[in-house]
């Protein structure tokens, strides 16, 4: 879906090593407003590392990331406001309530009115009933919705999600999918790592497969999932 607008997020020659092993071996990326990219691949292929690099949590061993035209580097801290990451962990404190966690996050992101933003995020996640309970008391599904609220409380244009559907029961997965549908506006770009592409197949605009630290394939999302699945298995077998 070629768009006239410049890419929101780009990566050029991304490489990342952890001590002895090279997890990403040269990866390019270009995501435009309105695009939703699904990233697939086996465990250990580098999907999580890719997201962490794009969010600025990791520094690339080589290559760089560009966010809304600006290069992501440790000195340019303010740039982090434009991206949000939902990772496997919630980044929240179990002893605080959801509301307290969200207000804290709001202050970290320099939001002008953290408590209003928190209330709005709580409403968006449908967690008004439990907003003032200790976070540690929430169920898995609620926790995931809470984590999503926390990750994107600053309403960034670039949203990175690392396996948002893991261990969610059907109703919770539905809620997350509904949230995604609402957030998938023409203004934002979403990159989602998932092991269950079928769940969000219709939402996605593009699909990419990482194998051994590189793209095995990247293309606009084909309409038929089954056909794609066959090619996917071929791609990762290489």
């Amino acid at each position, binding site marked *: 879906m070629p768009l006239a607008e410049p890419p929101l997020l780009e990566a050029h020659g991304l490489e990342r*090593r952890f001590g*002895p*092993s*090279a997890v990403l071996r040269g990866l390019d990326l270009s995501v435009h407003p309105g695009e939703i990219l699904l990233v697939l691949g086996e465990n250990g292929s580098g999907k999580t590392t890719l997201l962490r690099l794009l969010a600025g949590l990791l520094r690339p061993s080589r290559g760089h990331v560009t966010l809304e035209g600006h290069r992501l580097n440790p000195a340019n801290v303010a740039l982090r406001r434009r991206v949000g990451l939902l990772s496997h962990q919630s980044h929240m404190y179990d002893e605080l309530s959801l509301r307290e966690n969200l207000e804290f996050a709001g202050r970290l992101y320099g939001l002008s009115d953290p408590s209003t933003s928190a209330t709005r995020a709580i409403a968006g996640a449908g967690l008004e009933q439990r907003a003032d309970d200790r976070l540690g008391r929430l169920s898995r599904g609620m926790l995931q919705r809470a984590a999503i609220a926390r990750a994107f409380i600053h309403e960034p244009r670039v949203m990175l999600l690392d396996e948002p559907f893991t261990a969610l029961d059907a109703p919770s997965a539905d809620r997350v999918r509904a949230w995604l549908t609402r957030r998938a506006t023409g203004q934002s770009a979403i990159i989602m790592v998932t092991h269950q592409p079928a769940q969000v197949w219709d939402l996605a605009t593009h699909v990419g497969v990482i194998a051994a630290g590189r793209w095995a394939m990247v293309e606009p999302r084909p309409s038929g999932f089954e056909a794609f699945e066959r090619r996917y298995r071929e791609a990762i077998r290489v």
Partner: protein
Amino acid sequence: MTSAIPGQSTIRRGLWLIVLSLIALAGIYVLALQHTPIEARQGLAQKIFYLHVPAAWSALLSFGLVGIVSVLYLWLQDPRLDLFAASSVEVGLVFSMVMLTTGPIWAKPIWGTWWTWDPRLTLTLLLFFIFVGYLSLRAALSDRSERARFSAVIGIMGLLLVPFIHLSVYLFRTMHPTPIVLKPSAPSLPPVMLRTVLLSFGVATLLYIAFVMVRYGMAIGQYTREEADDAT
């Protein structure tokens, strides 16, 4: 001609330099024992001065270099700088141990006590512990980049600590005059003693360079081997 294994030539040259330095060290001993006068009040024990003071110098030299190289590492992120710093710490640790053991050996016959909280001894003692802490932390960290960065921070902070230790311990001591009659080093030395001391400073510096070369060469070799494994 560069050898196939990086670091090998550095090790070789370092080993040669060690041999040379040890010969020079032996020469210093001869000078110290035979050709310098026996100090009037301290007697034969004073001869250890020629070993003690240069060892302290080398310890301080290594510490200073670690601090500077640490700053460079944080700026340039070159892993070789980190390897050099770590090698320097190990060598400095050995020199400070020499200083800390020769100190009491010297002190006992002269002052009647094994240890005094003399500012220089105290400083070296604390340097010794910072060295040990530096190496312990390195041993506890497996990620190379993390290890290098953390070591660099300790190196810089350690270097900045030195003036504060010096100042505070000195002030501390002047508040507590100790019943010591003799000072460890006389303000003016006869020329032959001065010459010997300066020569031993030179030898200590050479030894420092030599040991660091060997250690650094070993470290580079190991690092390159690990990198080669990565490429597979």
